């Protein structure tokens, strides 16, 4: 059997003039083209994007127009709880996307050009964006609590505490007097 296979292989090798069935391949090509055309006409990106967006816009207009609002307090609470996880997921996603873009550009073998400068600028903007976001969230305040900071107004706080104490004292005095009477 093995010898026969080899013989067949050699015979096929020796006949490069023998082309595959042209009509058959043409048929397949036409079919593929037709199906591709149908697919593009039925499910293009434009329709996929526009249909839900228009629905959302209509819903929003309806909500505004009728003055109704959905009661989604529990959902809102859940979203605030999930917000932290979501930001981490978005962070990881952006990080991976940017890293894969950098890897793609350099492993493609580019030394100059727009894409190389884009990797530098994007990584720089990512750094700046992260710094701005961290500043906005004030993450460091929760971790490091300084014993003394210049920005903290100790004097006004002290005055406030004194005022509250005075009020309490006067209230106690009044109640005591009322009790005596």
């Amino acid at each position: 059997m093995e010898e026969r296979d080899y013989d067949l292989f050699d015979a096929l090798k020796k006949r490069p003039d023998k082309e595959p069935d042209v009509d058959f391949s043409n048929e397949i090509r036409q079919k593929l083209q037709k199906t591709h055309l149908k697919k593009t006409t039925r499910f293009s990106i434009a329709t996929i994007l526009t249909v839900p967006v228009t629905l959302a816009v209509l819903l929003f207009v309806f909500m505004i127009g009728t003055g109704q609002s959905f009661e989604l307090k529990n959902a809102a609470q859940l979203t605030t709880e999930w917000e932290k996880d979501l930001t981490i997921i978005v962070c990881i996603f952006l990080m991976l996307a940017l890293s894969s873009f950098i890897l793609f550009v350099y492993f493609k073998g580019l030394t100059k050009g727009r894409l190389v400068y884009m990797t530098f600028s994007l990584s720089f903007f990512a750094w700046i964006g992260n710094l701005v976001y961290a500043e906005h969230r004030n993450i460091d305040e929760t971790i490091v609590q300084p014993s003394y900071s210049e920005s903290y107004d100790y004097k006004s706080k002290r005055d406030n505490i004194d005022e509250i104490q005075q009020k309490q004292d006067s209230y106690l005095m009044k109640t005591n007097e009322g009790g005596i009477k």
Partner: protein
Amino acid sequence: MKNPYEYLLSGMGFVFIDLNAFGLPDILPDFIGYLLFAYGIHLLPSFHNLKRWSKNFAIILMIMSFFVELYQWLGYQILGEIGVQFMQFLFIVFMYWVFQLLLHIHNNKPLEAKTFKTYQKFMAFMLCGFVIQAFSINFDASMRGNVHFIGSLFQLLSSLLFINLCRTCNEYFKKIKENKVHSLE
């Protein structure tokens, strides 16, 4: 003639390694590393504009790193951790110019393929490490350290690749030198 690759190698070592143990300031300060880089680039055999630019860039970085690291001696931070990270980014840009110069010098030489491969890996890993470290600020405190460590691992790998390239270039340079001496004899 002095070997330029030795200076580049030691420059990389000075810039990348921070030895500030026992409360002492950094024994291998970055500005000396940039000075070595500038001298190494000065010794490289080329008359291209890239050489002038990268040498000037190294001198600018030397001055900047001196001011950023000044807090180790004075105890006063000018920009803090942000300054250190900004210097890291500038260092990556500087290394891009150094690699452009090396690719120009090693053009049509046996070192070209190795230089190009090192350039690809070095730039990719270094920028990825920078991006990972940049994003690590906004992670949870539990994850932050680990993510930062992964970023530093990438950068360590890229610096090792550069050191490896410098070593091979060093050997090649020595061979050429020996051949020249023999031919003179």
